[in-house]
């Protein structure tokens, strides 16, 4: 009690010092006067009375000092003293201080910026209640790949499992929506009724879906996002009159979701799934699934249960084959959303961590140089009685000042850094909107700065205060012995710096070479001068309605061809690199083998020699010309191929080679009806070049192309090859669509935009890691230069003596360069070993090069040796020019 109270009293004393000092003076003055009075009373003369009193009282100043120590908290006071002194020292060496602070700011800022991305994307919990209880459920294919769920399989999971409080399936797509304001292409999700329960949310207005809303043939209902409600429904509190026309059908708006809820990403409208009935096939994988675990159920338990159900389905289902699930898996939703982003981001974090280490090494070297300059100061302080602990504290305090100021500046810089990273980041990086400098990121930056401070401070303090400081005094300030020790440490630091830089630059080099290799891949199509126009008509099933849509597209294409500058117009279900095509199993069969029943198809599907797997692409003949996909043999679609003539297909070269080895596929017939419910056989009439459909770094997909006018579909991308300005083509095309049907929205872009977005994530990594590599290289060069220059300046006398004794300038140069080279080669050797060990972590991000690519290693080593030698050469030249007369007078 007493001690706590006295702590606060003393804490207060720290800040009321000067007043208390005056009071004590008054008190002691009074004490003295009383003493004099007493002495006078004893009969002393006034002079004698005062003299005696002063003698008795003793050292007033000492009393004051003891009093002061008692008054405040000496620890805090010495801290403040250290801070003041440290700040003064730093201010005196302004150049050193600015360089050290900026270097630390760079390291800490870059690390903070990257950490904020890692935190926002990977670590920050999803913004849902108990979000760690929300799981994703996937089927696993026979190749153990995750896949979406087939409707009957989902139903079995839902009905037979007990692990989930709620489980729901969802799919999303882009549709035309009108009725609110302008017709727009909007992202919608088709969800099963428990969808919101999984996320633990409820509509803020209106009601959630009920089981009845999801029944086949129920009146169409829709939930809208908060943003959509504000913007397109004018925040109307009365939903009873709110209707939206979605893909031609009228939906009643029944509820508004809370602000901030956007799952799946970018979706504004949620519709009940399967209003037209479910797909009874266990091999049509149409939906993703999410579930909320019941209390007390672990992920492993849920996983075990779902997996058991899946294997039961696999063993008992009548639909066997590659497309039937083999197993199933339950993983946390957060992991499934960020899974692909994880390893590139962690590589980035590693890279920036290396950069920070290189920056710290530079500052450590600066501090070390500073410390040896300050040897005399330390020696004097030590001689005057400063304990070693006190000196260590002084260094720690200075390191803290540097790191905290550097960290503060770094965080400021990180705000811009994060904005830059977000702008640069590939669109497919999930959760990019949650990346910001948040409180946890600030805490991280603070801890990081503290760690840097402790590391740097402890290192320099122990270096500087080890050994007998008084020797420094004896050496008359030349400090040769101590200096040589710290020189060696400096060289070790530089070697470490070179090693780390090498690892970083090798990483950047490997990624850069991968990007170059990817760009060298022949995509199989042209990219330039193509305007893409996404148009989706309401989804229809009736063959007559489908045929009408084909006629609509035909008219549209004819009109688009008349736009000045447009040379060719094609249409395709999806452009390469733009979301991908559906894939499935087709059957090789002839007309007279066509089974009469669905079961008959099942029987045929069990015959391995009859099936093949390919992407299914709907296109027009001019599409191949627009993209420049070459015809290898046979023909592409033409006037012969009307809706009522025999249906034809064109296949890609790799499919022809793999499915019909040593055979001519042209003339064969296949059945691919599971893709568009059209069982008419397709006759193969041509073979076209391969296309890298899913990305340049992935092998081309075997593809079956069918004719849009034989197999119509509602949503297509029109491709216009044009010499004219994109904007004028776009506005002309928009006008034509308006003219044909004002209710249909379109989305425009250029194919080169889509194409370059597909390289976005690779480019993002190369740019950032390359940037870190360059900075690290500059820092390491500065480090080499600093240590060498410092060494030369310390050895000026010695060099002078050598020259005076007849050393040639060549041998001086060799001596200095030799010293530098030893350091450099040590660093390079460690770096190469480190790189061989560490680049394995980036292996998954590489393309066309191995993690031990000799060319990259050799190139980077040469680059590093070259720059480091250059950094040595300047100080070495200075050493060469040392004038012995000047040098001997030096100091």
């Amino acid at each position, binding site marked *: 009690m*007493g*001690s706590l*109270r*006295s702590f606060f*009293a*003393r804490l207060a*004393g720290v800040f009321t010092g000067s007043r208390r000092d005056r*009071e*004590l003076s*008054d*008190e*002691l003055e*009074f*004490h003295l*006067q*009383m*003493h004099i*009075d*007493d002495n006078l009373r004893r009969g002393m003369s006034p002079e004698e009375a005062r003299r005696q009193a002063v003698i*008795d*009282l*003793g*050292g007033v100043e*000492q*009393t004051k000092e*003891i*009093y002061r*120590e*008692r*008054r405040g908290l000496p620890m805090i006071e010495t801290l403040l003293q250290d801070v003041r002194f440290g700040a003064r020292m730093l201010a005196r060496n302004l150049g050193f201080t600015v360089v050290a602070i900026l270097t630390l700011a760079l390291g800490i800022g870059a690390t903070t910026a990257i950490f904020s991305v890692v935190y926002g994307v990977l670590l920050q919990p999803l913004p849902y209640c108990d979000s760690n209880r929300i799981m994703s459920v996937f089927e696993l294919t026979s190749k153990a790949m995750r896949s979406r769920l087939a409707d009957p399989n989902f139903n079995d999971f839902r009905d037979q499992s007990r692990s989930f409080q709620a489980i729901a399936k969802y799919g999303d797509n882009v549709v035309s929506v009108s009725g609110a304001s302008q017709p727009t292409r909007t992202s919608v999700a088709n969800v099963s009724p428990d969808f919101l329960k999984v996320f633990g949310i409820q509509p803020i207005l209106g009601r959630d879906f009920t089981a009845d809303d999801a029944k086949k043939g129920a009146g169409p209902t829709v939930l809208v996002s908060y943003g959509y409600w504000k913007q397109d429904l004018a925040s109307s509190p009365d939903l009873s009159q709110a209707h939206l026309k979605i893909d031609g059908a009228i939906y009643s708006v029944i509820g508004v979701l809370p602000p901030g809820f956007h799952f799946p990403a970018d979706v504004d409208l949620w519709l009940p799934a399967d209003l037209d009935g479910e797909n009874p096939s266990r091999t049509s994988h149409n939906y993703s699934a999410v579930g909320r675990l019941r209390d007390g159920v672990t992920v492993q338990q849920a996983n075990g249960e779902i997996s058991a159900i899946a294997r039961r389905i696999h063993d008992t289902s009548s639909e066997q084959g590659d497309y039937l699930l083999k197993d199933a898996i339950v993983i946390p939703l957060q992991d499934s959303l960020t899974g692909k982003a994880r390893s590139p981001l962690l590589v980035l974090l590693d890279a920036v961590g290396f950069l920070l280490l290189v920056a710290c090494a530079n500052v450590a070297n600066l501090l070390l140089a500073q410390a040896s300059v300050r040897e005399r100061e330390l020696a004097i302080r030590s001689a005057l009685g400063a304990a070693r602990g006190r000196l260590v504290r002084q260094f720690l305090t200075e390191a803290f000042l540097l790191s905290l100021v550097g960290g503060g500046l770094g965080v400021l810089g990180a705000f811009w850094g994060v904005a830059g990273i977000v702008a640069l980041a590939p669109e497919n990086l999930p959760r990019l909107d949650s990346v910001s400098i948040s409180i946890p990121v600030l805490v991280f930056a603070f801890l990081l700065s503290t760690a840097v401070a402790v590391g740097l401070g402890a290192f320099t303090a122990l270096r500087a205060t080890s050994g007998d400081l008084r020797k420094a005094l004896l050496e008359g300030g030349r400090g040769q012995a101590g200096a040589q020790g710290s020189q060696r440490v400096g060289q070790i630091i530089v070697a470490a710096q070179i090693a780390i830089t090498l690892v970083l630059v090798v990483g950047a080099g490997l990624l850069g070479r991968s990007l170059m290799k990817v760009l060298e891949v022949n995509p199989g199509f042209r990219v330039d001068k193509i305007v893409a126009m996404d148009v989706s008509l309401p989804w229809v099933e009736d063959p007559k309605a489908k045929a009408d849509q084909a006629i609509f597209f035909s008219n549209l294409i004819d009109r688009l061809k008349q736009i000045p500058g447009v040379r060719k117009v094609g249409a395709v279900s999806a452009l390469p690199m733009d979301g991908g095509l559906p894939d499935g199993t087709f059957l090789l069969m002839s007309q007279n083998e066509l089974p009469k029943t669905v079961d008959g198809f099942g029987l045929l599907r069990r015959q391995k020699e009859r099936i093949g797997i390919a992407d299914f692409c709907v296109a027009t003949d001019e599409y191949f010309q627009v993209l420049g996909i070459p015809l290898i043999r046979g023909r592409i679609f033409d006037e012969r191929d009307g809706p009522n003539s025999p249906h034809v297909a064109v296949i890609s070269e790799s499919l022809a080679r793999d499915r019909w080895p040593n055979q001519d596929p042209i003339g064969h017939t296949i059945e691919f009806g599971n893709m568009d419910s059209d069982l008419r056989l397709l006759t193969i009439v041509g073979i076209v070049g391969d296309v890298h459909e899913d990305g340049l770094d992935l092998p081309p997909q075997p593809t079956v192309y069918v004719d849009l006018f034989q197999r119509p579909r509602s949503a297509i991308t029109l491709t216009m090859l044009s010499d004219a300005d994109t904007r004028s083509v776009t506005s002309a095309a928009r006008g034509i669509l308006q003219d044909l049907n004002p209710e249909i929205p379109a989305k425009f872009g250029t194919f080169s935009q889509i194409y370059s977005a597909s390289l976005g994530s690779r480019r993002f990594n190369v740019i950032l890691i390359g940037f870190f590599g360059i900075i690290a290289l500059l820092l390491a060069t500065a480090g080499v230069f600093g240590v060498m220059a410092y060494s030369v300046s310390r050895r000026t006398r010695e060099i002078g003596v050598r020259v005076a004794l007849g050393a040639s300038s060549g041998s001086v140069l060799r001596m200095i360069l030799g010293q530098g080279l030893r350091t450099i080669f040590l660093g390079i050797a460690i770096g190469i070993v480190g790189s061989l060990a560490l680049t394995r972590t980036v292996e998954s991000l590489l393309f066309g090069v191995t993690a031990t690519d000799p060319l990259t290693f050799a190139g980077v080593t040469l680059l590093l040796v070259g720059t480091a030698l250059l950094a040595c050469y300047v100080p070495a030249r200075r050493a060469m020019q040392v004038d012995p007369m000047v040098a001997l007078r030096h100091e």
Partner: protein
Amino acid sequence: MTDKKDVWQGTLALMVLKTLQSMGPLHGYGIARRIEQTSGDLLSVNYGTLYPGLLKLEQEGYISSEWGLSDNNRKAKYYKLTRAGRKQLESEAREWEQTTEILARFLSPERES
């Protein structure tokens, strides 16, 4: 060195508290004189410890101080015992008595067995 000072300060604190209890509010000089007198001039109060000691007692809340005028009209700082100080005095006095009693038993030769 610090050990000795602590013991000394411990006894000094007790003397100060006792003096203030018996004399009422008193300034630093008066406390010093009084302690010297009571000790029969065997003790000479070290001024360098008196004022820090008073400060410590004040920080611990056992005494309080205020500026006043002395008998001869000089500005002086007067210390007086607080309630907590009275309690502290009681418990410390008891402890001290116990300590001296124990030590006396050790030191008197006839009780040795």
